[in-house]
């Protein structure tokens, strides 16, 4: 089913229980930190907190809650690393806002749309991260289109599967 332009009344707005709202992002952060211990390439290609951010933002379809979700998850991800706190926060805030804004206007329930949206937002996330890290923090961050697209595809495929699982926790408003 193609991406369709819908009115605000036509799209479904979902909410999540508090355990899911807190537990899923925490689990994503934990897995993001834990899995690379066994599979070092995992952190290079997959960003689970980003997928969770996109999912919650699109499902809630509220830009404010979307950007706040992105900010909180991003800041938490920053705290796990040694880089200045806020780089991931800024990037995921932008993604959360964008994904929820997109969710208001487009039907992003089908796997194809989700694949494209996730790929697009992965690139947006990478671009914002690169800009902030290079321009603001003076970090040495390489930019590679091939890596970006490859990792974007990997995240998009994983995202489609993950969103399918997380759809089970949706509650209709």
């Amino acid at each position, binding site marked *: 089913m193609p991406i369709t332009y819908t009115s605000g009344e036509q799209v479904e707005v979902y909410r999540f229980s508090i355990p899911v709202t807190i537990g899923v992002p925490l689990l994503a952060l934990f897995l993001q930190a834990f899995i690379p211990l066994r599979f070092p390439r995992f952190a290079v290609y997959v960003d689970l907190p980003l997928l969770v951010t996109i999912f919650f933002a699109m499902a809630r379809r509220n830009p404010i809650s979307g950007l706040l979700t992105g900010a909180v998850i991003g800041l938490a991800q920053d705290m796990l690393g040694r880089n200045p706190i806020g*780089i991931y926060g800024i990037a995921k805030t*932008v993604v959360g806002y964008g994904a929820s804004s997109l969710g208001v206007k487009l039907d992003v329930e089908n796997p194809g749309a989700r694949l494209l949206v996730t790929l697009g937002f992965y690139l947006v996330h990478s671009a914002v991260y690169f800009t*902030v890290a290079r321009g*603001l*923090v*003076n970090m040495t961050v390489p930019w590679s289109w091939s890596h970006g697209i490859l990792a974007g595809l990997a995240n998009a495929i994983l995202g489609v599967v993950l969103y399918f699982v997380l759809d089970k926790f949706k509650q209709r408003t």
Partner: protein
Amino acid sequence: MESVLGRYRNLVILVGVLFLQVLGLAMQVKRGTNAGQDTRLIRVWAVGAVTPFERTLVWFQNGASDIWHNYFYLRGVRAENRQLKDQIEQMRLEQVRLSEDAAQAHRLQSLLAFKEQYVSKTVAAQVIGSSGMDSSRVIYLDKGEHAGIKRDMAVITADGIVGKVLLVYPTVSEVLLINDITSGVGVLLGNSRLQGVIAGTSNGEVTLNGVMSDEQVPVGEAVLTSGGDQIFPKGLPVGTVSKVGLGKDLFLSIKIKPAADLSKLEEVLVLAEKQERQAVADDKVHVRAADILAQRLPSVPDKPAADPNAQAGTAGTAKPGSTPVSGSAKPPATASAAAKPTGAAAPPQTAKTSVPATRQPSATVTTTAKPAGTTPDAAETAKTTPKPKTADNATADTKPVAIQLDPATTRPKPQAPPPVQPDSPPPDPNSPQ
């Protein structure tokens, strides 16, 4: 306004959240500069945001002030000009005296192998702002890293020291004033030479610490930098003692009135380069006015060179056993002038003269002068022989002093005798040779 905020509520919140995070990042990130310092990014931004306005304001203020003072308000300028000219004349006289004193001091320092700090480069800068807080007495200058300013450079005015450079930005620098509570400058008192450290107080005064209570410190005594802090060169005026009282722990409580008006700073100088080198005496001895006059006055003409024996005992020549030639026989002019290849028919023989150094009474200079035609370079380095210590000169430690001698003005003796011992008794013409 409310409708706009309501309409773009989501966007406003997004910008707000992003702004907070960027602010948080800026508080963490330190930006290194070429000046070798790490400054928090938020401080760089704050200075960058504020100083352009201050700079513009100062520019307008100066422009208006210049137009008023230079084009309209010229009353009394002629009279002031006359006064200044008179003052210049007096200062010129004073300068001659001081330059003589300075030259003498340099010679003495070179004898004692003193090392001095010289200010070799300064950067003039304008004060464009301040911290605006009583708790932090800092000012901002309109010159920064691009102008060669670095951290810990000394900042002064013509009146006295101001402070030191605390932080350097590309086009702006931050100066910690000497009356800030965190500042410290090594100083000494002008007359008593007592050393101490000045620091600021919370109310902006300057106090001198570290002087014992049994010392006598008069009000009004000058305070100079001691050079011990490695920031300010020695001898810069700091201020004067304004109040002396008993302090804590057997130390005096001394208040200093800064020489520079720290509350009305406009232009300052940043000491960009200091050099430490050993004091070197000026090779050319200054000709005294009396010597020049003596040369111009009619005097007994020199005897013709055809009678070389007649020259013995006069300036520039010496006989074994003769006394050193005194200044009255033109030795200063002879010793002071640099040798020039004049080729003025000086005989090709070597002449050895023994004259006392005019500026160093205890040193006797023996020069070996060659005529211009004998060597490519007519300037000959004089060899010196220290004067033996006697009761008269035993207090002064003599060192060889190089003096260049003008062969044209030196009257050589065809067959030069060995140098004269300066303290040998005067020759007796009747005594057997």
